[in-house]
């Protein structure tokens, strides 16, 4: 035993002292793993849930699920308008979502010029298209509309315009030929 003190034949204080740095490394790592495990476990669970929801879909379909209805609406606008168009969105959406949709439409529709207002009588000089955008009921439930909206006036405003697209969340009109 005296000649071979570092083989794991039996535990002794000397043995522990000799290997204390390795034990300490394992202990530190174990402590770290213990603290890191709950968030990692949550991440595994989140991965499982998202897999159930998104697996088997194309990347476009996944974007449409995650960014509903902005991604779908942007796709419809892109098909109906030229790249240099200017679009005024009259958005029936919550106050915080105005910025949200502005950034989404900017991203998806660049280089088109995008303006978003939660006001049915908003106007923009030089914009060739008017888009009436209605947010999904789920989003409105989370953040209710707090802008200015008059359906009757809006109906009158849109009456003479050429409708380019109509869907559940979007009505698109051409303002100038």
């Amino acid at each position, binding site marked *: 035993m005296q000649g071979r003190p570092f083989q794991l034949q039996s535990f002794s204080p000397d043995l522990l002292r000799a290997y204390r740095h390795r034990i300490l490394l*394992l202990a530190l790592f174990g402590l770290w793993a213990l603290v890191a495990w709950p968030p990692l476990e949550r991440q595994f669970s989140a991965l499982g849930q998202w897999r159930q929801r998104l697996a088997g879909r194309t990347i476009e379909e996944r974007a449409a699920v995650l960014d509903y209805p902005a991604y779908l609406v942007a796709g419809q606008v892109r098909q109906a308008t030229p790249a240099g168009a200017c679009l005024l969105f009259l958005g029936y959406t919550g106050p915080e979502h105005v910025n949200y949709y502005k950034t989404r439409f*900017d991203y998806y529709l660049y280089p088109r010029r995008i303006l978003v207002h939660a006001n049915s009588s908003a106007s923009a000089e030089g914009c060739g298209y008017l888009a009436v955008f209605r947010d999904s009921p789920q989003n409105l439930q989370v953040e209710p509309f707090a802008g200015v909206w008059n359906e009757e006036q809006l109906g009158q405003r849109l009456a003479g315009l050429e409708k380019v697209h109509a869907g559940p969340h979007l009505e698109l009109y051409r303002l100038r030929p």
Partner: protein
Amino acid sequence: MIWLALLFTCLVGWLILRPWLRGGPVVSLGLGFAAGAAALSLQLLLYDLARAPWNRWTVVLPWMAMGAACLYRRPPQPSRPQWERPRWLEWPALIFGALVLLAWAPYERLMPLNEWDAVMLWMFKGKAFYLDRGVAPYLARAHEFLGNPAYPLLIPLYTTFLYLWLGETADHAAKLVSPCFFAALAAGFYYFLRRWGSRPVALAFTAMLMGLYMVDFVAFHYAGYADTALTAAVLLGAGFLYSWLREGDYRDFALAVLSASIAAWTKNEGLFFLAGLGGFAAARLLCQRTWSWRYWTTLAALPGLAVLPWSLARSLYGVRRPGQLSAEIVQTNLASYWPTLKALVEHAFAPPVFQLAFPFALLAVILYRRAGLDWRFLTLPALMVWQLAGATLVYVTGPVNLQWMIGSSLDRVLSQVAPLALLAAGAVFTSYYDREEKRLADQVTARRSLRRRR
């Protein structure tokens, strides 16, 4: 195709770093990616300023020519990579690291680009630059958009490069840039600890880094942001600076300055890091009375390359920061300075978010002398504190409400220095560990010779 673009990026980085690099393929790939992304993005900006056209070939051909010249002048020497099987002490780290990747990598590939800053800012600019084939049209319209047009352009222009390579705006592919910088971060982290000490410690601490929740979250959930790139650049800068202080090798000095310059070309916070690291390096050179032209040229040229072209472009295209900084906002924010620091400390010491990175760093600062390190070690925690001080300064003097800034970015700001905190802890622990290993080896040798004599 995206993999080819990423590989090409590593090769570009390798071509640039060739004179300074030492170490195995892991660090070469990791550092190469960071340097390559910085070089390619800067190349696009310089082309834009010179009115040269952007397309796949105009970007790629100069590098191919450089690569060919390099191969012609000095063909690669056949090298036999040394591979040593993992020891029992290293298996837990390897398994834990693999688990972390299994939790996060498929998640990043599953999710489309959706996070706020990526859509509003970083990837948006990349897409706009690609569609416009230049930076000017977007910058001319910057007032229309919510993002800050004055931010540095490494991530946007590197994304543009990927789109040029792919021939389309494939944002799901391009957001791989964040996991790639995470890989560069992990490679650099392992490289430093391995260089300063033994493999079990390097592997264990690298696995800890990989399990740092907020760093993972930023790299994989916020894929498409610039934070992971900045984190990698900050860690590499600090690590090479400390290596230079330890060994006095010019190559480490050059890589430290290069990494800090990459940080400055990535985010505004990186400018602060560059100022801190550059100031410290200059002070050290002066103290040592080092007048060698290559040190001072490196210290001037690399930061100049990272900062000047973008400053020129900003003034040329009339780019201004959005928001108005008023005395009232500064006064309100100054009053909130102590609560900001308190929030910073609370977040840093929250185990579910940053695990034990900051407590370990604190312990390291207390114990570094007992582990056999000298004052030079303090550069690591000092740079961390400097960087955090810079962030709080930005908070206080920024033109936006402090509470909103804290809520939206404090964890990300801390995630930029958390790996550095862990590196400091690793440096101290590996010094202690190696001393103990040496003692153990000496004891075994002494007992063996005793047995032989008997």
